[in-house]
């Protein structure tokens, strides 16, 4: 398909795709309404196009994009499950979509009930005592959670400076801890891919504010010694933060609150199927145990009799982490999903997600090196090191998968696995889809032997071929310019 025009390149002077009704109030001279120096002198160079141009252009762009509705998307730690269509419909109900955040509370009772009930569901699923739905994404939830820990420690008069993060952790964990003013201490995983209690013991002292952990971890492995780890951290007065990115694996089986975690976030867009939107909007509710509830961002939703209300009266709150109440319509989607599935449906999610991951792991380990050969949870990590020995990198394998119409797994993460391929099939994929993926991966492993050039030059059937990322970073062109036409 090759290059595709930019909307600016379709622009033609004088063309329009939009009309307002005639101004029906008496028009005043605008220079009398605003002081002279306030007006802009040059017009912003927005496109001049007809509505049909807009529609064809963006429909065309959509065809150059791949989503879960297009096919298999086993992107590890991202939980790219199928998103039920009803979620889109309920979030577009006018009573939600056209609701202003500052309507009087008596006119937001339906919205408040939804927020309140979502919190009740999340409490039961996680074993935490209170939630805020304000954070807009997982990393925003991490920020909120670590700030809550900081506020808790400050109130106790403690000046703890360190946050411990395993070397297999998501990059957001260390970035968040640093953003909150903590020193980041990285600890090595052991040869089983888990947090090593001995390594942990070496860094645990009275300066430790928290340990950030995801369980199952980014290798898809359950931290079997979690109870011991929790005790070790608590014994030195630190808190335990749960990164909920991998929550999809344990619904109804075990709960962060029962494992000893004090604070956690949930990625509603992952576990509770509110689609990822090509990079957002997400939603990252934060749950805390009772001793931390007073530090949650304001407002929290409360119920008194039949009436729901926003409670801003939390004197020890960390404040607000964003305006208003969070990504409300995303919460509507998650709530819709929770209502549809119910308790037994949620357990089914984790069972099938774990079944699918283990099925793939078992079938693929003959063809790709499996560094941690044991029961996994929702995802597992292969290594392309056998293929690397033959001159084919994991990046090449990923690009070749595009030719087969499959979105590649997460690659080169976690950093502790050489040439990593992190695969998360999710529960909504059928055995047929998994079998087809296995066939494709086997075919690619054969191509590595027989025709490595095919992989080096992949992809072959996408709208554009392999793109020069190095060149893009060396000479960044971050916007269109009308000078291009000259």
């Amino acid at each position, binding site marked *: 398909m090759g290059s595709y025009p930019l909307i600016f390149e379709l622009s033609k002077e004088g063309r329009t795709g939009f009309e307002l009704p005639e101004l029906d*109030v008496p028009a005043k001279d605008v220079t009398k309404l605003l002081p002279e120096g306030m007006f802009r002198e040059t017009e912003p160079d927005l496109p001049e196009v007809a509505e049909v141009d807009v529609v064809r252009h963006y429909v065309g762009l959509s065809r150059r994009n791949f989503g879960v509705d297009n096919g298999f998307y086993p992107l590890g730690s991202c939980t790219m499950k199928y998103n039920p269509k009803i979620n889109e419909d309920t979030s577009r109900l006018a009573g939600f979509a056209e609701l202003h955040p500052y309507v009087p509370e008596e006119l937001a009772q339906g919205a408040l009930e939804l927020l309140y009930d979502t919190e009740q569901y999340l409490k039961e699923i996680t074993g935490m005592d209170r939630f805020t739905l304000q954070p807009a994404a997982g990393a925003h939830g991490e920020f909120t959670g670590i700030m809550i820990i900081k506020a808790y420690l400050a109130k106790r008069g403690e000046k703890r400076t360190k946050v411990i993060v395993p070397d297999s952790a998501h990059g957001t964990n260390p970035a968040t801890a640093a953003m909150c003013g903590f020193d980041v201490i990285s600890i090595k995983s052991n040869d089983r891919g888990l947090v090593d209690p001995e390594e942990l013991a070496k860094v645990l002292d009275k300066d430790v504010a928290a340990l950030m952990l995801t369980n199952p971890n980014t290798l898809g492995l359950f931290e079997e010694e979690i109870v011991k780890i929790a005790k070790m951290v608590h014994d030195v007065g630190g808190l335990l933060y749960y990164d909920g990115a991998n929550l999809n694996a344990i619904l109804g089986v075990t709960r962060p609150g029962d494992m000893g975690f004090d604070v956690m976030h949930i990625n509603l867009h992952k576990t509770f199927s509110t689609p990822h939107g090509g990079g957002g909007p997400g939603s990252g509710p934060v749950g805390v145990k009772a001793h931390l509830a007073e530090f949650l961002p304001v407002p929290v939703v409360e119920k008194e009799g039949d009436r729901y209300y926003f409670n801003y009266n939390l004197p020890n709150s960390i404040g607000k982490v964003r305006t208003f109440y969070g990504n409300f319509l995303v919460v509507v989607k998650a709530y819709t999903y929770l209502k549809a599935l119910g308790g037994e449906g949620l357990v089914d999610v984790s069972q099938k997600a774990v*079944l699918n991951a283990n099925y793939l792991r078992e079938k693929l380990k003959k063809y790709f090196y499996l560094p941690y050969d044991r029961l996994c949870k929702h995802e597992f990590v292969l290594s392309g090191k056998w293929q690397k020995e033959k001159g084919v990198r994991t990046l090449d394998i990923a690009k070749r998968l595009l030719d087969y119409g499959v979105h590649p797994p997460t690659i080169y993460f976690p950093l502790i696995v050489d040439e990593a391929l992190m695969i998360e099939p999710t529960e909504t994929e059928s055995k047929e889809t998994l079998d087809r993926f296995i066939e494709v991966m086997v075919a690619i492993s054969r191509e590595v032997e027989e025709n490595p050039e095919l992989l080096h030059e992949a992809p072959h059937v996408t709208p554009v071929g392999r793109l020069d990322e190095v060149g893009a970073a060396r000479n960044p062109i971050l916007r269109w310019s009308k000078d291009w036409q000259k």
Partner: protein
Amino acid sequence: MKYTPHTPDEVREMLSSLGLNTIDDLFADIPEEVKLKRPLNLPSGMSELEVKKHLAKLASQNGSADKYLTFLGAGVYDHYVPSVVNHILLRSEFYTAYTPYQAEMSQGVLQSIFEYQTMICELTGLDITNASMYDGGSALAEAALMAVNQTRRDKILVLATIHPEYRSVVKTYTWGPGITVVEAPRKNGTVDLEKLEELIDDKTAAVLVQQPNFFGQLEPVEEISRLIHAKKGLLVAAVDPISLGILKPPAEYGADIAVGDGQALGNGLAFGGPHLGFFAARKDLARRMPGRLVGLTTDRQGNRGFVLTLQAREQHIRREKATSNICSNQALNALAATVYLATVGKKGLKEIALQSLQKAHYAFERLIGEGYEPLFTGPFFKEFVVKVKNEEEITQKLLKHHILAGPGISRFYPELAPALMIAVTEKRTREEIDTLVEVMGGDR
């Protein structure tokens, strides 16, 4: 309702290929002591039909803008969203995709972000824009952090006329790393320039200003810019993107960073979210930008294509040395803004801004004609505040006529009460504005 496709036979077959007998065997690695040994105490699942009815009932309890005539503003505005926007958002290739990590398969979203970046640069006059932030408040807070890093100074001056919720977010973000935030007082409806000048010193990383400010008033941004730049600090402006259809872009009065909430650009009211924050800056700040950037490049055949670029600033590569922890942003909302701006175009945006301005001033003058007094007398764009006898009474009276206005100023500035905020967009007709005036008239 379940969305898993497995048949019982398939489950058996898959388990047996793993040498397992039951589904529970898949969880043998979880210690017994932390296993939940009871069913989740949640209601049973519902059919799609039941869920839909239940959600429709909750939605119907809300006083949404399809049922009420709305003059509510204060950061979220009832601007018109053309039909085409929602139709593009419903293309599931966009909304069911993840972050575009595999560029060749994600040219659609990558190119739309590149177009978005261009449009925000055009609106603000600045050189570079990221792929979006969570909202206006968090964008402003990240701008403060960026200014601190850039200038290596640790004090931020925040105008007291900035949206109170934005200021609250800035305080939360700056508390962790120990940045000092000082509020620059107002004098009437805008900043007190004399006091501001006194507060700016060699430790001031940036002055944060909102234009138009929370009250709808226009700040003396040129003066503020001069004051902070004289001390080599940065100017951060939070702006209403619709206003930029006619108002001077932030770059022209010297803003180094411009942020704002993009809600008005094709995103609905949504009870406050999801919206998007936009974030633009001078070119030399590129390597300190939070969030994602999309850049132009080529493939081996010379075809034009787009990739995430300058990723070496980001958390997945730099970990604790990243410029920000932002990962998921508001990409789909940025797409809405892009489609919106493409649809209304340069003429449309100007007309929307002009009609909002004209209609707001019509409403203002009619209310003054009815004997209302303005809280502030400076120039304003589409929002203003009038003094009232009793906030609660007038709000209730308006509600009886199915009109939403406000919020009452006491919610944020008790010392200015009683007064009511009123926002007027291009959507309001003369008849609707006259109805507001009629109901409010005689009360003053």
